[in-house]
């Protein structure tokens, strides 16, 4: 793996500027991923900068055209440019992904930290709850929510958020328990520090370290799940340009106009991959700095 090595400059030597050192230690693949992510961010915040056509404009003369120089990703059944529609839908897709991830991690933090710090009873109860939630496949749980609460963007966010929370909660709980049993926590106890101080200074900061990584990886996964639901017709409805909705709309055209189905999927995959690469790099950095001697 591309773990940057931590070299210590000799005392007295001038330390290189932190940004230069950072740039030098980042491998090429991560740089590429960052560029892709930046592209999507721009697409979300300022779509007009990247679009080639007006996403709403229909052109019945150019219906169901394959990808070409004129239309990068082809056109749909009313002649609208697929590429531009994709860009247009970025904001909503990212919004759903971020919302679901925020909900998911919020729940996970609450459950995981309570289970880890709360004593044997709290831990037992929450662990059982998590075990049960884990027994439901994520999609099934999400579908249960959609059944009960109906199809809407809010339900989508809640369904994906609640569906992915148990996994993260378990990870956080494990992390908190591991830190609790660590040697430095006992050493702090032996020094006479109060429990609140130990939690504040040692347990929480060390246990939450992997959270940044979880957040990055989580956004990718949330978008994948949300679009999965949309693919089944249970997400945002067409004619919204949201990626999942595009997937749903493209389903009936798979044999005739494959680009309507494959391209939105490509956007989702590109986003998820770049976010995963960055997340794993962050994880490597975290472990490289804090790892074993």
């Amino acid at each position, binding site marked *: 793996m591309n773990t940057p090595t*931590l070299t*210590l400059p000799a*005392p007295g030597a001038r330390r290189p500027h932190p940004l230069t050192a950072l740039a030098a230690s980042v491998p090429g693949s991560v740089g590429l991923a960052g560029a892709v992510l930046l592209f999507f961010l721009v697409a979300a915040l300022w779509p007009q900068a990247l679009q080639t056509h007006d996403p709403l404009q229909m052109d019945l003369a150019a219906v169901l055209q394959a990808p070409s120089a004129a239309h990068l990703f082809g056109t749909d059944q009313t002649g609208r440019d697929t590429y531009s529609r994709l860009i247009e839908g970025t904001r909503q897709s990212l919004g759903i992904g971020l919302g679901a991830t925020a909900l998911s991690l919020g729940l996970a933090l609450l459950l995981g930290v309570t289970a880890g710090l709360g004593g044997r009873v709290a831990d037992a109860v929450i662990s059982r709850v998590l075990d049960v939630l884990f027994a439901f496949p994520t999609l099934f749980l999400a579908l249960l929510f959609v059944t009960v609460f109906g199809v809407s963007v809010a339900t989508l966010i809640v369904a994906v958020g609640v569906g992915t929370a148990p996994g993260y909660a378990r990870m956080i709980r494990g992390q908190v328990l591991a830190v609790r049993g*660590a*040697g*430095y926590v*006992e*050493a*702090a*106890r*032996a*020094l*006479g*520090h*109060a429990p609140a101080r130990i939690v504040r*200074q*040692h347990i929480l*900061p*060390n246990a939450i370290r992997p959270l940044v990584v979880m957040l990055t990886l989580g956004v990718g996964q949330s978008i994948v799940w949300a679009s999965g639901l949309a693919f089944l017709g249970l997400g945002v409805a067409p004619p919204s340009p949201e990626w999942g909705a595009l997937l749903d709309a493209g389903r009936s055209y798979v044999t005739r106009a494959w680009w309507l189905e494959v391209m939105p999927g490509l956007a989702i995959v590109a986003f998820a991959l770049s976010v995963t690469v960055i997340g794993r790099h962050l994880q490597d950095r975290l472990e490289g700095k*804090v790892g074993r*001697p």
Partner: protein
Amino acid sequence: MTAARDALPAAPADILLRVDNLTVSFGQGPAVVRGVSFSLAPGRCLAIVGESGSGKSVTARALVGLAGPRASVQADGLAFGGEDLRRFADRDWRRLRGKHVGFVLQDALVSLDPLRAVGDEIGEGLRLHGEAGSRAQRQARVVELLERVRVPEPAVKARQLPHELSGGQRQRALIAAALALDPQVLIADEPTTALDVTVQAQVLELLEETRARGKALIIISHDLAVVSRVADEILVMRHGEVLERGSPAEIFGAPRHPYTRRLLDAVPSAHSRGTRLAPASAPRWAAPTGSPAAPSGLTPPVLSARHLVKRFRGPDGVARTVVRDVSFDLQAGETLGIVGESGSGKSTVARIALALETPDSGAVTLHGQPWSAVTERERRPRRRGISVIYQDPLSSFDPRWTVERLVEDSLGPDPADRAQRSARVSELLDLVGLPAAFRHRRPIELSGGQRQRVAIARAIAPEPRVIVCDEPVSALDVSIQAQVLDLLGDLKAQLGVSYLFISHDLGVVHHLSDRVLVMNQGEVVESGAVDEVFLTPRAPYTQRLVAAVPRLHRAG
């Protein structure tokens, strides 16, 4: 046995292994082994001694072609029984390994496959080299081998997994595996490290027997005393080079190289009490020498334990009594050593003394006030009076913190002023011999000895009266160990603290302690002044323990 030791070196025709100017390097880096030469004849034992980084292990592994994936091995001559090892391809090495050269690694718990039966591991060599025919014949041979290394109930043990055997049995099984094909040479890399003293003695006996049967032996070790018993020739290595070679009598009686002399001086024992182990350049201030002052019996003990009992429930649900009716007193300004093998309960006693465990019955008092019987809330402000130094300091440091923050954190509420606190941290770092530049480093960037100094600085920061030392030097090289022991002695003289010193190493305990407790399986078997207990032991266990410790016989 003595006759073989004093015999002249064997005639060239008898030489099994010849190594001439061996050099090993990894990638572009400097050579890890440089210019090592020796020869080995049947029935002779060669010991390669050195501290970590000396290149002794790499040398041994280069002899079987396992120096490492990116190692480049060069030599003017490297021959085994007439075959030139420098020309060996992978197939040739596989033919050599096991059949002609047996190799024993340290720590059988990780050197035997934990998921396979011990018998399978031993028989694997037989199978690979096509010996001992059918499966039944192999199994019979395995049982025979286990018998030879004196593992009880060999047929039963052969079917068990490594963790079901005791430490000593495991190590002997590992040796049996190396001897399975009756190789001419046996190489043992740190065969006695991580073993209890009594088990060490058994393993050494086994190695001696192997040599007596006509095999050539190479022993790699960091422990001079261990090899002094078995070796015919000793090579002292440092930074990849052989600094000195000779028979044990020559090396121990009249060492020529200053490093060898330093190494011998650094070994703590009964003879080194009251003296510095490391060269005088190590400490940062002049400190009084001579035996530590005997404490007066009039002041109340700073730490006192009565009838401690502690039981633990194992993963199989069975309750084991780890500490049985242990009582002791620690007087002001004295060092009380607790010595025992693994499973003796000494670490648990230390934890009870620190109130990190509560005893099932019995009580501990600190400075005359109840310590184990009160609530944690009452104890907390008093915890400054007692601190701890662990064997592995790294795990007791928050991985994100710098040295400065670690020491400052243990200062306590005063001084409240930031400048004063910073000054105090500087003082403490100075006291333990750490340069000021280390303040901003993280412990992970420091060496083992430096980390232990940080741990000591942190332990003395709250100005305690008692410091519990749980195997503080066991993981350190001999020369670093010497420096840390000197530091502990200096601090005691300067600050007047009392030490509760836990260790399995009798030499270290004898060097540092005033009185000692000998523990075995949870009980205090014997206690008293350290000279009395170690030089004239009364309890049979203590006698066995003392007899098993390998001794360095030095002239003068």
